[in-house]
């Protein structure tokens, strides 16, 4: 019987190891579900917009709702200049949303539960935001760390705190998503174990597990939204310095 932690193991499906350079480029279950997620997103938008009509069909309606939701979020948080970065935010949002939701299907692998995936996305966002800010404002970008309207003697204390809180953003973004997914799935597997272990009274943990799956689907959508909204807020910090 497997424990609750076995679901997070990355297993190669097609082993491709190149010994001389020490490369392991196997096609893993994580990569498979990433490909499935990207495929679903691509298919959704291609098929939904094929015969685009003014009165939308069901699939077109889903695409339109997604697009308007993310576009409204970028407009609210960044302003009109942020619409240049809408494709990036949309990609981020859909990748995380589909990753979280695919993981809710029993037997699949949640690729957003691994810190390496989410940390890479978080670092990409912070590097992109910093480069955008530096390109737009030059050295004036560093005024982000020295908010105005503060008495002079607080600056030596405030500036290091601001810098540290800026540098911790990718880690907080990454850990929020990865640990939410990991903890949720561990809880589900633990309650699943209780169902089997309690025999006839297993109906009680079963009902709790049903409720938990509903909660986890809500958390999946919410975490995707939070990642995207925080990326928009950091982008706003860089584009419109405070």
């Amino acid at each position, binding site marked *: 019987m497997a424990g609750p*932690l076995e679901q997070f193991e990355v297993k190669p499906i097609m082993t491709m190891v190149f010994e001389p350079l020490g490369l392991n480029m196997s096609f893993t279950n994580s990569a498979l579900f990433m490909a499935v997620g990207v495929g679903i997103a691509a298919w959704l938008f291609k098929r939904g917009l094929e015969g685009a009509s003014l009165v939308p069909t069901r699939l077109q309606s889903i695409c339109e709702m997604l697009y308007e939701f993310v576009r409204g*979020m970028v407009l609210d948080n960044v302003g009109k200049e942020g619409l240049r970065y809408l494709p990036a935010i949309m990609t981020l949002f859909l990748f995380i949303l589909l990753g979280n939701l695919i993981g809710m299907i029993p037997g699949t692998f949640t690729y957003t539960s691994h810190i390496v995936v989410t940390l890479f996305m978080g670092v990409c966002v912070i590097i992109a935001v910093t480069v955008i800010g530096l390109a737009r404002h030059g050295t004036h970008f560093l005024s982000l760390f020295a908010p105005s309207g503060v008495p002079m003697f607080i600056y030596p204390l405030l500036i290091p705190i601001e810098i540290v809180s800026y540098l911790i953003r990718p880690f*907080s973004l990454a*850990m*929020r998503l990865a*640990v*939410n997914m990991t*903890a949720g799935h561990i809880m589900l597997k633990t309650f699943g174990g209780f169902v089997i272990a309690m025999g006839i009274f297993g109906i009680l943990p079963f009902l709790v597990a049903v409720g938990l799956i509903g909660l986890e689907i809500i958390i999946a959508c*919410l*975490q995707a*939204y*939070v990642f995207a*909204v*925080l990326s928009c807020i950091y982008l706003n910090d860089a584009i419109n310095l405070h």
Partner: protein
Amino acid sequence: MEIEAAKMIGAGLACIGLAGVGIGIGNVIATSIATFGRNPASQDKLQPIMFLGFALVEAIGLFALVVAFILLFG
């Protein structure tokens, strides 16, 4: 004391931080519900911010959980 016992005790102590998270999330949701009750028109504008606030506070609780996991399984 054995290292295994100390790890278990440390993991239990790390979970004390979750008390603050409970208070924080309760505060966010309670204030949101009170605001929606007083001013129903504000619900469309404030509900996304409520969800964002909930996720930010929950993240702190998950940081405490990560410490517990590192102690238990690291």
